């Protein structure tokens, strides 16, 4: 695994913004780094909507937000001095159960040596009920480093 191949997992949240900014500040002069801004677009659960139309509208809105975020995140890295040629963005439709597993799958498939995730700072109770992507990534990551930005 190449530690300079860096996967930043983002989801349009403030946590993701902090993670992107952190990587930009750290790697602004590291021209050999390869940075993937990686966003899994998990399809909203159909059961949460009364009909197909509202469900599909919600999915489109989510995708639009993610695309906009990826563009902003790229801009944020470039503003901090990261070479535009080192940055790739990827929005991937996702139908699996666990976003963390999806991130780890992309890390393995792409040979990324570093994963970066943002973290909000959940309580134990919240993590028990809602789950934590960052915690799961940390627990299940193999053969790579994980940076957790809080």
């Amino acid at each position, binding site marked *: 695994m190449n530690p300079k191949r860096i996967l930043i997992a983002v989801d349009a949240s403030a946590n993701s913004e902090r993670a992107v900014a952190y990587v930009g500040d750290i790697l602004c002069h590291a021209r050999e780094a390869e940075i993937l801004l990686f966003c899994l677009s*998990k399809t909203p*659960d159909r*059961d949460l909507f009364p009909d197909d139309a509202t469900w599909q509208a919600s999915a489109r809105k989510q995708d639009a937000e993610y695309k906009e975020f990826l563009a902003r995140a790229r801009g944020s890295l470039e503003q901090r001095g990261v070479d535009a040629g080192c940055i790739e963005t990827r929005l991937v439709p996702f139908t699996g159960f666990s*976003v963390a597993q999806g991130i780890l799958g992309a890390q393995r498939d792409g040979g990324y040596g570093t994963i970066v995730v943002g973290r909000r700072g959940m309580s*134990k*109770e919240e993590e*028990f*009920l809602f*789950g934590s992507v960052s915690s799961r990534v940390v627990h299940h990551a193999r053969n790579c480093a994980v940076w957790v930005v809080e």
Partner: protein
Amino acid sequence: MAEDVRQLIERMWPESGISRYGRVFHDTSEFMDIGHGDVMALGGLHYLVIRDESERRFGMEDPKYWVKRCHVLETGEKRIVKLVFYETFNATVGRFQFPCYRSPIKEARILDLVREDPRFMHGFSLEDSQGNNVRVLEYVQGRRLDLQVEAMEVDHETYFRERFPAILAGYIDACEAILFLHEHGEKHGDIRRDHLYVERGTGRYRWIDFDYAFDLRENPFGWDLFGLGNILAFLVGKGEHTPLSIAEQGLAEHIRVPLDQDDFGIIFGNRLFNLKKLFPYIPERLNRVVLHFAQGANVFYETVDELLTDLRPCLAELGAIPEQAQGGEA
């Protein structure tokens, strides 16, 4: 001209003794307008509405106007008919609130999935004249498991040694039923003590009510696991134990090691989960399983399979693996 309710009842159930002859509904959209004495014509059958269902929680009667207790005029069978009610509300659990959705299509899908599975309530779905998804449910003839356990007039040690092994076997069977749902990409969504019944005659544990859906994206099965943990603690403890109830029942004198916050539930912080401190004969292995749902836990179960892997040896350790859960009335 279509038959009216009076004609239908005089023809098919003259001895009904109902007090009101209402209207025949083919469209169930306005479920608040459908009540006692009305008939819903669905899928070629006529469902005479006896009354709205209700739920008793925390001593309060909570009417469910979209759930009708019915008599099928053609067959004489009793059925529960659930009409479409898209509801979104904030579920409150401990100090957390999160959106909860009532999903008819989810329940209909699960009814199809468990059509032949005796661990769940049975029924089917159909569409009314407006395409509303209506679920027709059979009654589970039996009693709520928690009420059955509470009604056992024995002390905890007698309960634990003589009755609990069979109850644990039934509970494991019920967990396997939930695992079956998860393996098929479904969640129960509302695992509570009052949604697990012991069927009269067979003693089988059967789940009811699957129409809740949540958006717990990184922990899709966590909500079901939370419910299973609460039920397990209830069954092991033969009830819920709080500092107040422990004092009121005079159990405090049995506690050799002082209780601390880690001993209580991770979400409901006043419920004791370290039950071994109260009942020292509870085996360590079983107590450890329950402690996964306590504040002191460092590792949580992520799947029902993990819970079952830890729980099955507990049953073996208790020395009783009945062929079937013993479900006789207490």
